[in-house]
Structures are given as structure tokens and as C-alpha cells.
């Protein structure tokens, strides 16, 4: 092996070793790299108890209720297998909608309600004109209807 090939081999080996090391480190820190917990994880007590954490999922259809005072809002977050009720006082992001993604930061209260002090909207990766979105929705509805028959 020529010296420069040896050098190249050493660089390749070094970068590979580093890659393996970072995979191991990232695996070890897996739980700390999570931005939010799903309702299922919260029910399974995987989320920190008594401390502030984030919960993420979809806003349950028909769950959004505003108090008469205006800024206090009740809704629930679901991952379709479990649902957690949330209370929040403040301004919601524009994309906050029933059936859409949401990430809320706060604490679990003793009676199982999540007291949020920040609510963020999480949107998906799809981009399309409104007409296309409408057409897709219509198609989904007819499919549902035909399945029900």
C-alpha cells in the first residue's frame, strides 16, 4: 500500500468509527431527543411526572370549546388510541384546527387534565391548492360512505 493510500484508508476508518460512535450515543440519548410525547406514552407513564413536558398528537374532532371569557380554551389531543384533555389560556397559532397536528407544553394536573402554557401547531408535509384538498376530502368521504353501505 502506498503511503497516501494508507492515509486515505485511515481517514475512511476514522470517519466510520466516528459514525458508529455517534449512532451509539444517539441511541443512548434516544429518550432525551424526543420533542414531545404521544397520549399513549403519557397514559403508559413514560412522560415525566410532576415536571413540564410536551404532548403531541391531533386535536380531537369536535373537542374544541371556548370559555365565555374568550381566551381560555378546552380541547383534547389524541393519537387515535388514547386521548388527553388539555386546558390552555392564550393565543392559538393560525393553523390550530380540529383534526390537525398540535404540540402543547405544560404539566399534567392531578385530575388527568394537561395544563398547557404553550400551544404550537404541527402541520404535515403536504402542499397543494385548496381545490385539490377539497377534491381529496370529497373522495375520502365517498369512500367512507361506500364502505358503510
Amino acid at each position, binding site marked *: 500500500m502506498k503511503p497516501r493510500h494508507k492515509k486515505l484508508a485511515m481517514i475512511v476508518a476514522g470517519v466510520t468509527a466516528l459514525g458508529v460512535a455517534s449512532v451509539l450515543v444517539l441511541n443512548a440519548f434516544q429518550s432525551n431527543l424526543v420533542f414531545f410525547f404521544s397520549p399513549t406514552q403519557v397514559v403508559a407513564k413514560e412522560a415525566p411526572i410532576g415536571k413540564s413536558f410536551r404532548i403531541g398528537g391531533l386535536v380531537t374532532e369536535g373537542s374544541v370549546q371556548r370559555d365565555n371569557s374568550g381566551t381560555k380554551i378546552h380541547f383534547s389531543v389524541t393519537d387515535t388510541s388514547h386521548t388527553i384533555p388539555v386546558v390552555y389560556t392564550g393565543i392559538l*397559532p393560525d393553523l390550530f384546527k380540529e383534526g390537525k397536528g398540535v404540540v402543547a407544553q405544560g404539566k399534567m394536573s392531578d385530575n388527568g387534565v394537561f395544563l398547557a402554557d404553550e400551544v404550537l401547531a404541527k402541520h*404535515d408535509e403536504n402542499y397543494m391548492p385548496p381545490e385539490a384538498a377539497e377534491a381529496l376530502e370529497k373522495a375520502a368521504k365517498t369512500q367512507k360512505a361506500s364502505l358503510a353501505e
Partner: protein
Amino acid sequence: MSINWYKYSSPSSFYSLAGKMIPVFAVLAAILLVSGLYVGFFVAPTDFQQGEAYRIIFIHVPAAWMSMFLYVVMAIWAGIGLAFNTRLSSMMATAIAPTGAMFTFLALWTGSLWGKPMWGTWWVWDARLTSELILLFLYIGFMSLQAAIDDPRRADKAGAIIALVGVVNIPIIYFSVQWWNTLHQGASVSVNQAPAMASTMLTGMLIMVFAAWMYAIAVILKRVRVIILEREGHTAWVAELQKEGIA
């Protein structure tokens, strides 16, 4: 007909080749930028959930892709320079860093401007955003380290180490949205899936990506020419250029 590629690994012949290529890439960049922005702002339809605000994607995504791609190219040149002691490769790595850092900053900045109206926050410490910020620090670290060492050959070696070590961050940025829960959404365009975008939106974005490529090539070649002149200042051919008044 065969081209002697090795000829262009010498700084003097690459200097003149780069000089001829710069105008071509600069003109292409300008044409693509204008047509990309036109498609992005006037042809592409409004988005069903984000309205007009999504149009920042035409700058955000090309900038983010270039920030990652340029880092990989920089690390490859730095690695070749380290392994084979080829001067020009290390100069290429040095020339790429500022443009890469600029695109990284642009991606973070436009992302922040986009995050406020859509997500409700300028910044969150999720895996995607944090790893992209680390990329900016890697670029800045590479540039500062090289600037801090007077001997250019030692600076090249030290910089190459940072560049190669930092490469592990690139797959982390790219796959962060798949590996962990993040606020940032998943990829709309990927190799193994049909793009999750309307086709005119995608066209506009891809034109902007090519514009960013052409711009990056033109600017990097321009910068590498300056670096060549600086480092080869002691040679006869640079002295000749100076005599002719070209440089």
C-alpha cells in the same frame, strides 16, 4: 479524444479554467433565479392550509438542501487534500465554507420567519432545528480555525479534521424528522416517494434549487481564484499575471 484531467489539478491551469466558467454559471444562476421566483410567486397556487405564507419554501428548502450538500462537498475536498496533499483540493474546501455557512444561516432565518406564523414560535429545540444550528457552528468553526492558523498547510489539515468529523451531522439533520418526534414536518420530496406537493409548486422549488447550485458554483470558483492568487503569490505565473496587469 481524451482530456487530461490532471492538468486542472494544478492551481495555475485551474485558475484560468475557473475564470472562463464563472460567467457561464453566473448567467445561469440569474436566469434560473428570476424564473424560479416568477413561478414561485405568480404561477404556483395558494396552499390549502398555509395560504400564501408557504411561499417562503422557495427560498427555505433550496437553502437548507445547499447547506447540507455543500458541507459534504467541502468535507470530501478537505479529505482528498488531507490524504493526497493536493493543494487545490484544500483550497476548494476553504472556498466552499463561507457559501455553505451563508446558506445555513439563510435556512435557519427563513425557517424562523416561517415558524412564527405557522407553528406559533420563532424557534424550538427540536432535533431538526438544533442539528441545523450545529451545522452553522461547524462551518463557523472550520472558518475560524483556518483563520487562526498562519501556515496554510497546517490550517488545511486542522480544518480537514473538523470538516470530516462534522460529516456525521449531515445524516442526523436529514433523518432527524424520521428518527425522532419533531415539530418540523417530514420531507415533502424524497428519493423513494412521490413528492407531496402540487407539481407547479415543486417545479418552482426545483428551479430555485438549480439557481442556488449555479450561484454556489460561480461564487465558489470566484473565491477559489482569489485563494489561489494569495497562496501562489510566490510563483512565476502569478508574477507574470501581475506584470500583465490582469490580476
